[in-house]
């Protein structure tokens, strides 16, 4: 197992290096010149050249990349162009908020997806199966930003049960309960799509596992239905399900972005949106890097869980 973990971690290093190169190059794509953006259109050529020299922008691209990389590795993401604050102080609290939203959505998606998928599989072709799969198709197809708006319309504006947006009430105490109330609608909005996908995958893998010969053998041995399903069906169906769940976490980290914008949730997504609007490139870089790194990390964790569950995967 240790060898597997080591191999997986070493294998991911080139990917992370590649990710950093892509993110560095993304900024080069941006139209306009950083010196002009910082100094304004009326700056003299001499002043611009001086600033470019000071920022190291007159050097060759590979040199600029290594300078940027070594700064980033020490945790120095530079200064935000729009707010003049260090990017790290801007990004890290937002990252925590995004993690709160992503993990609560993942939890909800897992609870809904696993239970609905399992019930649908055990009663395949029943009314419940048909109804839940049709609902899953609908929920999986609805754009999250639209779903969010509809939920706000219903639960926040018409019924007035929950707050419209934000993370804390201006007037409230801002305690955990307040945050929880604000968390409900964004969580449901982001969780429904992944829950639908997870439910469909769980259903099909469980149905597939139910038909395998070893399940028939176990049944003929006289195992009770509950033990049969717990020990022989679910355990075998888990690896593909966990892989899909991990992919959903990636979607939640990146895709929660639209939900964050709709609900003004102060996470990385809404920060990315604001910095794109303001063309604040250092913040865009840091945000993208952080999300991509957590995505890579999430994938490794998924691999490790799968390897722990299924000894065959450790050998490969």
């Amino acid at each position, binding site marked *: 197992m240790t060898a597997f973990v080591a191999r997986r971690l070493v294998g991911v290093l*080139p*990917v*992370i290096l*590649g*990710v950093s*190169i*892509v*993110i560095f190059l*993304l*900024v080069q*794509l*941006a*139209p306009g010149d950083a010196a002009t953006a910082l100094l304004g259109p009326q700056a003299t050529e001499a002043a611009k050249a001086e600033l470019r020299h000071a920022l190291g922008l007159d050097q060759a691209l590979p040199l600029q990349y290594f300078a940027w990389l070594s700064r980033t590795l020490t945790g120095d993401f530079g200064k935000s162009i729009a707010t003049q604050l260090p990017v790290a102080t801007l990004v890290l609290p937002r990252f925590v908020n995004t993690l709160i939203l992503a993990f609560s959505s993942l939890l909800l998606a897992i609870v809904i997806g696993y239970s609905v998928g399992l019930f649908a599989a055990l009663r395949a072709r029943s009314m419940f199966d048909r109804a839940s799969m049709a609902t899953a*198709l*609908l929920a999986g*197809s*609805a*754009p*999250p*930003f*639209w779903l969010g*708006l*509809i939920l706000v*319309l219903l639960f*926040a*504006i*018409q019924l007035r049960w929950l707050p*419209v947006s934000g993370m804390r009430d201006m007037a409230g105490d801002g305690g955990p309960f307040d945050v929880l109330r604000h968390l409900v609608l964004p969580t449901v909005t982001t969780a429904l799509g992944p829950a639908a996908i997870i439910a469909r995958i769980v259903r099909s893998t469980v149905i597939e596992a139910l038909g395998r010969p070893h399940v028939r053998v176990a049944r003929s041995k006289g195992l009770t239905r509950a033990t049969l399903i717990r020990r022989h069906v679910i355990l075998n169906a888990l690896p593909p399900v966990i892989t899909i769940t991990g992919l959903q976490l*990636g*979607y939640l*980290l*990146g*895709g929660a*972005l*639209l939900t964050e*914008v709709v609900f003004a949730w102060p996470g990385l997504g809404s920060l*990315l*949106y604001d910095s*794109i*609007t303001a063309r604040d*490139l250092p913040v*865009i870089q840091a945000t*993208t890097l952080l*999300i*991509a790194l957590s*995505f*890579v990390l999430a994938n490794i964790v998924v691999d490790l869980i799968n390897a722990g569950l299924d000894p065959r995967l450790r050998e490969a």
Partner: protein
Amino acid sequence: MSSLPASGSAVRSKLASAAPAPIEKSQAGARFWRLKSFARDRGALVSGLFLLAMVLAVVFAPLIAHYGPDEADNFARYKPIGTLDHILGTDQQGRDMLARLLFGGRVSLLVGVVPTLVAGAIGLGLGLTAGFIRGLVDQIIMRCLDVVFAFPMVLLAIAIAGSMRPGVLTEILAITIVLIPYFARLARTATEGVTPMPFIEAARAAGGAPMTIMLRYVLPNVFSPVVVYATTLMGLMIVVGSGLSFLGLGVQPPTADWGAMVAGGPRRAAPGSACHDPARLRHSRRVARVQLSRRRRPRRA
């Protein structure tokens, strides 16, 4: 393949001259039966017809809508659904909703279709090359694509689109880049499955050039999973594209687009106003519905 002559050059000329066989009667019959079984599946039929109607409505938008999508009438703002002359009402600038919906559909469908096709072609080429040639080329191509896989799809599209000037082209380019690795990986896996098959070995033994084998024998077998995958992705890309427009990274005003129209809706529904905005609901439902019918088709076909 067993009846092939031994001489390599003869085979090559035969490989080159093998024209597509005319469709025989039995094949035409099979196609008819496939169509019939498609028609018997009510879900597939309804989805297919709905999609067809939508495409036709969007293509022939000028014939259906009485107004242009950008024609604003300040005396006719916020007309409700069912108003004479404006069946679907008007928006905050008095523009006809039906016209905007239909013309906006052109952009939305374009953003779903064009990047998927372009990325499908590029990804197919890359995956085919990587899976067929193997070795260093395979390693280089797949490791580069691994980097793109390290980003969540929507995030990368937003980051690319956000770094460039917003517009339809940016939107299409961003989605295309994001999609390429998905197609490439699928094509490579399919190629890997086809290459060890006996008929490829036979073609190789008969002296077929690698390029010929790749294009004539491997490609047709890799093609169909890629096409099926493309049809499932088109629907998803309409949603991703409308998401980009929703963020203001895609189509710029005043051009209509479903995502941008959903974004425009809430401006009217101020918090607490408790107003039900039919305009917004309509486009959103349409985005979801097109996505739905796209997704249904490949499962059955």
